[in-house]
């Protein structure tokens, strides 16, 4: 079964097209990488998939059901770590996570247990600090904890690993791998292609403005194999990505 299915998704802001007829599907139990250069429409696509933005055209299905901004039952089964993190800065980490847990319908006992466990695991135990006092990496950890606290079936993570220290990233990867093995789905964006290559089974690459240019299995790279595309052979994700999105060489004489 497809956990996520997008058909001809179009998102326009006035005359500007951010996503242009995007169609793709993600099978349940997949760690899916959604890649593209800056401004190619990744976050806009995630916005449409999570109910933040209304698509101009096209259709989105999550876990086999048609999804729109009012699909509360589906939202309960989704976890989102937005690009802007979506934190309430004057709150403390445990207060924020407890609020998120309650909003997803967790009972008081589960909220307290899960918040304590998450904060311990992610080393966020200093309850005297507000989220505004946290470093960027710590804030990312809190946003990640908020995305998983209700144990969702589909996780949308917008650049989850950037700014987090290696130990934190390793822990998150471990959790995500176990999560996917349980048949649940992760849809993530990242600019760290090495991480995506090691973590994801499948990848979609989009180019500006939100057009799908390639989608496929990348487990071949892990088996020291290569991917054939456009008559060329690519032995890693990075050269394939650069080939698809346009590698640039600009020489600044004064630099």
């Amino acid at each position: 079964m497809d956990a996520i299915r997008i058909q001809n998704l179009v998102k326009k802001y006035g005359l500007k097209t951010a996503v242009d007829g995007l169609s793709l599907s993600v099978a349940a139990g997949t760690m899916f990488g959604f890649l593209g250069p800056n401004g190619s429409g990744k976050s806009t696509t995630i916005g449409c998939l999570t109910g933040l933005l209304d698509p101009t055209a096209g259709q989105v299905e999550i876990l086999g059901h048609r999804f729109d901004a009012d699909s509360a039952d589906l939202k309960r089964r989704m976890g989102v770590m937005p690009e802007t993190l979506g934190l309430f800065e004057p709150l403390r980490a445990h207060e924020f996570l407890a609020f998120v847990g309650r909003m997803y319908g967790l009972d008081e006992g589960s909220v307290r247990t899960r918040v304590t466990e998450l904060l311990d695991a992610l080393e966020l135990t200093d309850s005297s600090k507000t989220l505004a006092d946290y470093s960027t990496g710590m804030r990312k950890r809190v946003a990640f904890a908020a995305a998983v606290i209700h144990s969702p079936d589909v996780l949308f993570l917008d650049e989850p690993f950037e700014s987090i220290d290696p130990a934190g990233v390793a822990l998150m990867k471990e959790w995500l791998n176990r999560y996917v093995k349980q048949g649940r789905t992760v849809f993530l964006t990242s600019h760290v292609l090495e991480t995506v290559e090691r973590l994801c089974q499948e990848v979609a690459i989009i180019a500006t403005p939100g057009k799908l240019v390639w989608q496929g299995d990348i487990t071949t790279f892990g088996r020291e194999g290569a991917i054939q595309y456009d008559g060329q052979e690519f032995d890693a994700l990075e050269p394939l990505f650069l080939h698809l999105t346009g590698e640039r060489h600009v020489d600044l004489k004064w630099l």
Partner: protein
Amino acid sequence: MDFQLIRHLIGLRYRLLWAKTRTRSGKIALFMAGYLLFVLVAVFFAIVGAGGGMVAVRSGQAERIAQGILTALFTSATVTCVLLGFGMNEVFSDTELRRFPLKAVERRFARHFAGIVDPFWFLFLALYLGLALGLYLFGAGSLVLGVIAVLALFVCNYLAAQVVGRAMERIMQQKGGSLLLPLIIMVVCFLPSVAMPMLKKHAGAGKVVLRVLAFTPSFGAGTLMTRTGPAAFAGVWPIAWWGLGLTVALVILEKRPPRIRVAQTTRIRWDTPYARAAKIFGPRYAPLVEHWLLFLFRCKRFRIAYVMSLPLIPFLLFMWTKQAARADPFATAMGVFAIAGLAPAAAFLVNQFGYVGSGFRRYFLFPMDPAAALRASSVTLMALCSVYVGLAAFAWVLFAPGAWGARGIVMLLASGVFGLCFFHGVGLWTTLYGARRADPNKTMGNDLSLVGNVVVVGGMMAMLIGPMTVGQFHKGLIAPDRWLVAVGLAALAACFYLFSLRSAPAILSSRREALLAVLERKA
């Protein structure tokens, strides 16, 4: 001093102002109209200032009257600045300026120069200049010395507002600061009304006060404006000393920012008073109300505004009413009761999502109707403001018992309910159509949109002046025997609030993308 770079930064300040305006449709026209109005007001103020000069000369006490006018202007500018936040916005922070090749002194100069060229300050400059011009035209002073005095006093005024604002921020950060600050404000507010009768009783005391006031910058500027020759220079010293002292105080306050108090315990507390209070609102709204209570009481801006209302409401209730005794004290008190429902959380109730920043998107990710977040926020703010209506009624019963009987109290309470319902209803609509991203930790500055300012400042002015004016021209029109009319108006306002609470949040979803763009600074 790298004046060229500083000049570019000032230019950037105005380009940013323009950029902010042109990105929103229809705002350019509004901006032009606003500035046209600003020019008209500045001209009007200059004429008023010149009129003051004329009165001063004709009375034969040019120096004393000029000093009085300047002191009043100086105090009004400082109070308006600190309380309403106009002219206190920091355009560039020191951290932002650190990316440029500027020394610490240059950064400070650039920051404050960008601050003083704020349109708000120009209004007071126009008033000061108008007075100097008036004095010169009517032969009571030199134009050159007058302009020098105005510029020096203008700088002192800006510095004083900055120092007072920062000192208040520092007091709030101290242990017990949230109690100490309202106490200080209450003393400052009530001092003139207590001191005036005493001064009238003791003839010698007035002279002592005047002798002390002679050392203030506004008295110095008055002297400099009205005297000629070497005698004028007696006014230079107070301005110079105050200018120097305020600069040193500002530098010290900026160099040693208040230490943020952190809780000593690292134990997580689950059963908080916020959680217990929120339970009143039922299981559906309790988590949201608890979240709003936590959020609001953690925002420095909210805490300061809420705490400052504690001395403000009794001050308005008793002093303003006393001032307006010639008009109609009861009508004036009616206006103050209406303000009690707005003042404690004014900036928040007209911009309920403005302070949550990117957290705003969470309301759309949760499996709930996003409208519930706006309803919960509005109801929480209303509950918090209603405490002040209750306090005002309690103070009235305690200190003015039986003045207008039970009907009077019912009428005043009805006015409080009217203010609560009307302003909170309007607040729901301005939250949707006049939102603006604001910093919850900034304690100074005005970060409301144009619409927000119109509602807050216009609402307060209308409630302060409106009933008083009606009472003055139609004595008895606002009187306890018309209590039913007040109850009727309160009921109408309650209907308006209920209608807004039902309809406004319903359009939140359709305004979602526009609000996201504003609150995440993409518009």
